[in-house]
């Protein structure tokens, strides 16, 4: 165990999500997997939403998924993002659904996407998605 910077201390994580954000530093997208029933879940909890077992492990996600819903934000919301930009819900192939951005000019519901990483000053890279090739 190295003396990693704690993102919880910065308010950018909490003690249960710290492993997720530490994996993001290495550009690895991770989700929780229940060792009892095998279901995947995200965000992390100390129990399985499917079977209520309490033994869960962090596993790497393939990083591929499908757009469940999508909007183009055309109004100013964040100082870090200049509109217009694509805001989406992506269903990972493992099951969990993530809110994210699609780094593309345009996209559609049902499109296949692959994880990409957005650099952030002083914070772990943010998982975003781009349209899958082919």
């Amino acid at each position, binding site marked *: 165990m190295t003396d990693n910077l704690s993102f919880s201390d910065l308010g*950018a994580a909490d003690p249960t999500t710290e492993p997720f954000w530490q994996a993001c530093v290495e550009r690895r997208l991770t989700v929780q997997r229940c060792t009892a029933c095998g279901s995947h879940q995200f965000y992390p909890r100390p129990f399985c939403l499917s079977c209520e077992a309490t033994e869960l492990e962090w596993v790497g996600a393939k990083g591929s998924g499908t757009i469940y819903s999508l*909007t183009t934000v055309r109004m100013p*919301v964040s100082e870090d*993002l200049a509109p217009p930009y694509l805001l989406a819900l992506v269903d990972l192939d493992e099951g969990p659904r993530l809110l994210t951005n699609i780094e593309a000019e345009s996209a559609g519901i049902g499109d296949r996407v692959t994880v990409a990483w957005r650099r952030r000053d002083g914070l772990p890279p943010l998982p975003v998605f781009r349209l899958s090739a082919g």
Partner: protein
Amino acid sequence: MPHILTASPVYIVGAAETPLGKVLDQSELSMVALAAKEALGEAGLGLRDVDALFTNYMGEEGSVQLGEYLGVRPRYAESSDMGGASFEFFVHHAMTAIATGRCDVALIAYASRQRSRRNRKKAAAALDGSLSAQFETPYGIHFPIGHYALSAARYMHQYGATPEHLAEIAVAARQWAGLNPKAWVRDPLTIEEVMASPMLCDPLRKLDCCLVTDGGGAIVVARKDRARDAAKRPVRVLGAGESHVQWHVAQCPDLTVTPGVASGREAFAMAGVKPGDVDVFEPYDNFTHAVLLYLEDLGFCGKGEAGAFVSEGRLRPGGSLPSMTSGGGLSYCHPGALGILLLIEAVRQLRGEAGDRQVPGAEIAVAHGTGGLAFSTASTVVLARD
């Protein structure tokens, strides 16, 4: 056998709006006090008769702050935050409390000056360690337009609803607003004008979104015998139901379905009526597409059919399901939490005192509230002319 909560019926015995629109000469607390006095006065009651207090968004420990201001020391109190639907939840809870003898006269009240104060928040806080700050804020999701846009986009994709279907909701609300002298915007509006308004978050345009105004109101719930000296006709609470689901949009398994399925089923079952019996529908029209989802989830039409259901002008004045009869959150008033005003308008319609916008012969009305982010909460209240 009657439902245990309706065996000894409860009534809305008073209902009043606060000042509406842009309110510069009152505080939120004084606005509530004015509405509370008026609502209690309709029932022949005073603040000294109130023994239960329900409020939301009136500051930390809201019922405590409001109780102090009004000089009310309740024996039953609640400041649950169920978003804009809190007031429908409170009617449900007041029914339960009155039926079990925990209180006799329940005051439900709220006011906001979100327009005058310009304090409407548009995004969750950054870097406070919350799940929203970690997994929503960095992606630039507007609070709440982004959440609802993701619902609307999925709904239109899944069921083929069109921008015209959404626009029809705004037009219907505006036609009702034209009949309500208290409505914030009353100019005529066309489908084409809605569809030409600026896109904010696809598919939601400016005129698909509710107003930002000051306002609020008060209602009084009691047994009929507590309002013996009532100046106004009490309105019976036939049934109520509630539910809530996700807070974070990614946690919602199906953004085309709302917790109104559960709240509506419970409310209609308790009331012993069907959607087809409803004369006046007061849905929480924070966004146009939201009304389509409520119509389906409460059983006014089948899933995915609401676009066609509304496109015959059914919700407009003269239509077969008069809805948003005040002009709604889209054109009358949206003081951050619309739920209290849905109940007040339903009461006005059932008393037959709605003036130019009166629905002739209205016997049964439904107020359906929602709250939170993309249909987090829902509560349905079925009311009847006694």
